[in-house]
């Protein structure tokens, strides 16, 4: 119990931030509570560095939440929630154009500040696979940004 208390105190804020970056406010409390409940139940399995493990649990919790919302939608397309980069419209547009696999590995590195080894833990893949995924995602994001910069539409309704 003491270990759980320490983990909770040290990582509550980080887990909450992780969830807030990926879920609407309405589900944040529940998702964070569920994540720490899993931690409590599996305290013996929690690694020495628990944060990537907690992120992985939170990721699965949010996936379950998304599936639940999809079931509630009953055949209709379930609404998704993907917080975008703020204060940088071009970056947000380029980022949102990537697929979810690319976005998630970039989020983990840029927003959670994880190493690629820790990101691999969260994503449930090997460190090598994570590294490849990360570099490809980064390249695709840079390419989309460069394309957006080079695209300058002609002004309409301008008399020359």
């Amino acid at each position, binding site marked *: *119990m003491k270990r759980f208390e320490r983990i909770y105190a040290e990582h509550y804020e980080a887990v909450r931030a992780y969830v807030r970056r990926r879920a609407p406010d309405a589900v944040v*409390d529940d998702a964070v*509570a569920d994540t720490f409940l899993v931690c409590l139940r599996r305290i013996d399995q929690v690694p020495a560095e628990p944060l990537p493990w907690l992120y992985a649990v939170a990721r699965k919790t949010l996936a379950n939440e998304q599936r639940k919302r999809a079931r509630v939608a009953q055949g209709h397309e379930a609404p998704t929630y993907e*917080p975008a980069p703020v204060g940088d419209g071009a970056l947000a547009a380029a980022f949102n154009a990537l697929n979810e696999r690319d976005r998630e590995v970039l989020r983990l590195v*840029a927003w959670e500040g994880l190493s690629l080894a820790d990101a691999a833990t969260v994503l449930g893949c090997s460190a090598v696979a994570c590294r490849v995924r990360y570099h490809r995602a980064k390249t695709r994001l840079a390419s989309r940004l460069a394309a957006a910069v080079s695209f300058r539409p002609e002004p309409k309704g301008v008399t020359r």
Partner: protein
Amino acid sequence: MNKDVIARLAAANPVPTGEPLHLPEAIRLRPSRVAMVVAIAAIAIPATALAGKLGDLLGISNSGTPVSVSSVLPGETKLDAALQELKVSGTMQSLGTLNGVSFYATRNADGHFCFAMVRVDGQFGKGFGCDLNADGFPSAKIQALTFPDVMRLQGVAADGVASVQALDANGNVLDSTPVENNLFASTAAVPAGAATAIRTLDAAGNATATQQLPKTAQPTNKPAKPGQPTNK
């Protein structure tokens, strides 16, 4: 260029990590969600011989009456399992109902004060938490317990506390409610995320303690988020 992209993305973090840390005061487990993730069967524990002494153990005058956990949250039988994982026995003390909110409390095996609040009409659901602070409730520093994301000023107060206030970041009083029999339950809503602290006052109106609340989701004062939320 690629490295710059990551730095640029980091700068556009919608929830920056540079926010000051606010350690949580209590673990909050929502019964409706607990039921979804707790799979082990509930184990019924008969009322213990300690029940008569629980009032003393709670550390407040309102000793309540023992009730089984299953009666605290009827229809939420799987919550029993979660409570046991938090080392809460099969019984809690019913402290009473105030303004439509029923309060229950106990101490877990580690001695932490745990309490549950259940709205009689079920409108705002139910909550359960344990105070994990070393100098936990009731103490000179911790004279009232509520849930971290205060949206209504409701909870349990120590002896001698006559009223409880919710404060914003500037120290302004958002809401104030009297304490009756160690319980407080305001019916006024506090804007989500607005309360940053709660203050307890004695009968003379003197502040006895001010407790900072853990930071919760507050999507305010942020630049506009393009395309958020996204409906695909």
